[in-house]
């Protein structure tokens, strides 16, 4: 399947680039646009972005691999990111990860065979008052316990 960018995506990219004095500066937001449209950033996407922004492909690769929010392979429909930093672990955050691993039948970093869920362990999400917390795609969920997680998973469509 070709991953050529659609005219609509190209237009959105142009819109983003207009806010910067040079194209290189638009690299992070452009990669985010690509990922939101295509689900992840493939090697081919990297080359297309490099060409659009007038960069050497390595400049794109080193950014994609530096930042944790860029995915280089497909993610599940629901990307579950669980904080395992200090405030969350003080609130039994590790139990949350264990529960999700058992419930989804996958290890950290894996995607369920049906492509529905990806489980990731992350550092502080900035919601420590609601510890333990997690993100599903870009939605935050806090004050978690196993029962609450079950309800959240059932509510995901």
């Amino acid at each position, binding site marked *: 399947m070709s991953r050529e960018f659609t005219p609509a995506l190209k237009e959105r990219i142009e819109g983003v680039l207009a*806010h910067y*004095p*040079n194209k*290189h*500066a*638009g*690299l*992070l*937001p452009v*990669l*985010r646009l690509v990922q939101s449209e295509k689900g992840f950033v493939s090697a081919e996407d990297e080359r297309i972005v490099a060409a659009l*922004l007038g960069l050497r492909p390595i*400049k794109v690769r*080193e*950014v994609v691999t*530096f*930042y*944790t*929010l*860029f995915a280089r392979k497909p993610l599940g429909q629901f990307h579950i*990111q669980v904080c*395992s*930093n*200090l*405030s969350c*672990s*003080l*609130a039994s955050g590790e139990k949350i990860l264990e529960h999700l691993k058992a419930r989804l039948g996958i290890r950290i970093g894996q995607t369920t065979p049906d492509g529905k869920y990806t489980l990731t362990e992350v*550092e*502080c*999400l*900035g*919601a*420590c*008052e*609601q*510890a333990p917390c997690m*993100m599903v795609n*870009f*939605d*935050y969920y806090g004050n978690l316990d196993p029962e609450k997680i079950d309800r959240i998973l059932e509510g995901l469509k």
Partner: protein
Amino acid sequence: MNEKVLTQNFGLDHLFRIEVYLEQGGYRAAKKALTEWKPEQVLEEVKKASLRGRGGAGFSAGLKWGFVPKKTDKPKYLCVNADEGEPGTFKDRYILSHDPHLLIEGIVIASYAVGIHDAYVYIRGEYEVIALRLEQAIAEAYGQGYLGKNILGSGFDLDLYVHRGAGAYICGEETALLESLEGKRGNPRLKPPFPASVGLFQNPTVINNVETLANVPFIILNGAAWFLAKGQPNDGGTRIFGVSGAVNKPGIYELPVGTSLREIIFTHAGGLKPGRKLKAVIPGGMSSPILKAEEIDIKMDVDSVAAAGSMMGSAAIIVIDDRTPILEVLKKVAKFYAHESCGQCTPCRLGTNWIFKIVKRMAEGKGEQGDVDSLLRLAANIKGRTLCPMGDAAAMPVFSIAKKFKEELEASLKGKT
């Protein structure tokens, strides 16, 4: 005296909409500054207010603005640091989501004071929902003439744009933030030159934290003397303390700068759960040196916390009770910095990973005699030997935990004597 300033309207429905913000007197400070005051007057007032940076370093905002050259042919930039990532910190999330116009108003005034016409908010990528809300607020502000050309008829122009990060703690460090905004890996730059002279796109740049800027409208409206009276003589205003960990009521508490740490934990955050005792407190985000239970009778202002051997940082207070083994805390600290080191400087890249390796084996019951001393030595060898403060940020908590809880840590070692 515990009147709230920054968070006073947070209970209002739809405060993030410009109509509601205007009903509360919003943008009056911007109007006053831009139409009645000269930029130098604004700068002077903020200097007099002793507004110290709320992001971590605690540097005077007025001085920082003053370092930007007045006469230059180059464009000047303002970068708002909304890359809130210091573990334990969540206060800026509240400002951004509840009262984005307060931030925008602070940005307008700061930009006017320094002669800046282009500003970016660098927001951490995880805050996507909040970034969308901020973009909506910015669109409203453009629509009503608080951003864009000739703001409020003053002849002052300002463009503001939201730039999303993509997941990297290091980008909260100001020069890494600049690199990231330029579309690169977040590798910090060597200083000097400082961003005030050579910053974004090699141009003079101010970088301020969200909460720092949110204070500016109140300083303009009420004056520096009022702001100083709220806090300490060399550290004005209030702080939004974020309390998490083993307290009954985790959350944000806006209190005068200089409020005692004990009072914040035991009065405002509701103290610890029944039957549990305080063991330790991290007073200013994970990178601040740990305090033992008997060390919390201190005033929470930049200088007092420094005098107590720790750091006010982002005023993010993490409370640890007596049921938590200190080794567990140390493991989280060590894991975090090993993960987040950008890899540019050898002492940080290798040191953080060696520390994590040792702590991990200690946690698995395989710790060896001398491990705690190794931690102390490694941490001491990172501190002060890196380009950016991340090296210190990684070393300080490890060093302080290993030093203050040496006995407990050594009790977990193999073949203990």
